[in-house]
């Protein structure tokens, strides 16, 4: 997920972190097939899952495999 552009909406396809971390991610809404909006991508990733805004470290974002659904560049 750390490879997409800010403003993109992506669908989570697979979680590849440790089982413990995956469990936490799912509990927090990062389940498979969940649509996520990537708000900012600086060093860490800020994204919107349903109505919750979650900050993830870049390393953790890397372990979330996603598919891009639509490219919606943020207005400047």
């Amino acid at each position, binding site marked *: 997920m750390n490879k997409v552009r*800010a*403003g993109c*909406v992506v669908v989570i396809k697979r979680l590849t*972190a440790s*089982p*413990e*971390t*995956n*469990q*936490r*991610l*799912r*509990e*927090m*809404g990062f*389940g498979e*097939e*969940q*649509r996520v*909006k990537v*708000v*900012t991508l*600086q*060093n*860490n990733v*800020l994204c*919107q*899952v*349903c*109505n*919750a*805004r*979650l*900050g*993830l*470290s870049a*390393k*953790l974002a890397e*372990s979330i495999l996603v598919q891009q659904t*639509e490219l*919606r560049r*943020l*207005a400047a």
Partner: protein
Amino acid sequence: MSASPFTVVLTGNPNCGKTTLFNALTGLRARVGNYAGVTVERKEGALRGADPQYPVTLLDLPGTYSLSPQSLDEQIARDVLFRRLADVPEPALVIVVLDASNLQRNLYYATQVIELGHPTLIALNMVDVAEANGHQLDIDGLSKALGVPVLPLVASEGTGVAALKQILQQRAREAAAGSTDPSGSAYQARSFAELPEVFGREAQGISARLQSLYPHRQRLADAEALLLLSDDRVFNSHRDLYPADLLEAVQAARKRLESAGVDWRSAAIEARYARVFAIAQHVTVETAQFGETFSDRMDRILTHRVWGLLIFVGIMALMFQTLFSFARIPMDALQAVVDHTAALVAELMGPGDLQSLLTGGVIKGVGAVVVFLPQICLLFLFIALLEDTGYMARAAFLMDRLMSRVGLHGKSFIPMLSSFACAIPGIMATRTIESSKDRLVTILVAPLMSCSARLPVYTVLIAACIPQRRIWGFLGLPGLTLLAMYLLGIVGALGMAWLFKKTLLKGEPPPLILELPPYKRPVVTVVLRHMWDRSKLFLHRAGTVILGINILLWFLVTYPRNEELQAKYDRQLLALSNSPIPPGPEGNIPESIMGIRQAAVQREMAGALLRDSFAGRVGRFVEPVLRPLGFDWKIGIGIVASFAAREVFVSTMSLVYNLGELDTHDAAAQSSLAETLKGERDEQNQTVFTPLKGVTLMVFYVFALQCVSTVAIVRRETNSWKWPLFQLVYMTALAWVLAFITYQGGRLLGWG
């Protein structure tokens, strides 16, 4: 006679509006205490407007994402629901608060709670936000799918709260009349996770064992068995909770599942998740569009690596500048009240020990701390605003980059920022940190952040030592000095965290997952209430601990009385009043000359008596240690006295330096403490409080752990004396070394 209270427990995910609902139901009249044995805040309140015959008690549990706790906070929520805490009665009703705009994630926890079989009600909060975001919800459908009543509401606006109150009142009446079934024997087992058959069988086996072990928690056994089988950490955190043979049975069941090709870690979670996904899909009509919102734009700026950081520094600078300039007027007014009261009491009582105790020890001593109330209120107002607007979490997210350099993650920044107000809530806020090593490191460095008790010390020293100069036309040097002290604390905390993570407490921090609450316009009443609740603690400390220390200090600076010395100065004063004074140029005798001479002798007498008092002896005893830092024995008294609480330094200085003046019974002579310090001269007639000494003293106070309450809370949080003692030693040593470098370095550079 009224019935025993009907206990209602509020639970839900963090940021689902649980506390807003709790406040709406209790009218902000919560009793805040702790759960027995741990420092997790226990927030309890009575239902506002309830029939006194059928009282309802509400308990606000810490927010949690699931029943598999990752932190101490979440553990408490689980233990209350599992009836593991002896001091919490069995919930007569559990209200699960759901964020309607984030249904899927909230349902995960809700289904877990419903499975526990307590009488449950769903409070579907923020339905307005859900609608605004394009989620149309079928309330009846949700209620049918979950098998419990669902009540839509908007807690922040009070919509639906009256209906919920009515339901609670009705349930309380029914419970008192015995028409409900609190024992839950009519409870229908519900399961939302369709488990693989083999997993289900193993879970049943564990459940049967649990039922025979804990007959009073029979109803909970199925859910408990599922958690025992699935939770990876169970063998670390539950070792004392269950008998060894049960844990062995769990281990054996897991092995069997593994050989059957079932992943015990994820099977139950995935099954529940699939069901929750289906329920959410079934009851929601999505018309949501992912467009750019106001929050997106705000977040893009506030969490930007450059702009975000600049804004953060700007907010901090504004905060300290405001603390220094805006609080001045009410502080001066309070100072005037304290001075007048002291003068009035002195006049009414006439000279004597009791008068000296009341004016010097009680009124002036406690007053010296109480005058800082406006500044403390402003500081707490700022912190409350940062928390309430949602900015605090953004700052933590922003700071993650910096924190990761020292081996911690952004979550540790929130306790550190809270410690600006007071290290105690800061240390308590570390409970949300998952890794125990990271938590300990944060606890060890949190008191390095400058707390509100240091503010009076900085303010007095800055006013006494730092010249009023403008920088870039709008920033004052005093305000900047204050900011520098706060920054020094932050740098010190980060440096020590890095050191601890490299040496004592090595370990990788868990990956950062941080929830950022939505931006909110702060509610004035809530912010003011927060501010007042915390400021009240400051006043309470002033009225108890500090008053006590001041009375003791007064005794120590007054006794033993050296009659011989007193008599010597009395003779000098008498001789002075009898000695002829040469007339002025116009033939009159200037009375002021007499006054000046008398005041000089009185000051000298006060100094000599203080030097000989118990406190003076203590000050002189520690003087050799403090000399290299440029401090004399009088400052030594202040440092020793403030070991229990930092702000005592201010009242001690007031007591030590105002002694001579108090005896003059002249209100005008009793100038403010900063003015007194400014005019203080040593034996060589050199200014004592030079800018370099002022800065050195402040550096000492930035790093020294002078707070008994912090030591006590660290003892409780770490459950040992080892860490608080280590913290006391390392911080005191650090304070001495850095103050030494500041003073000696400054002298070498020719600054003082």
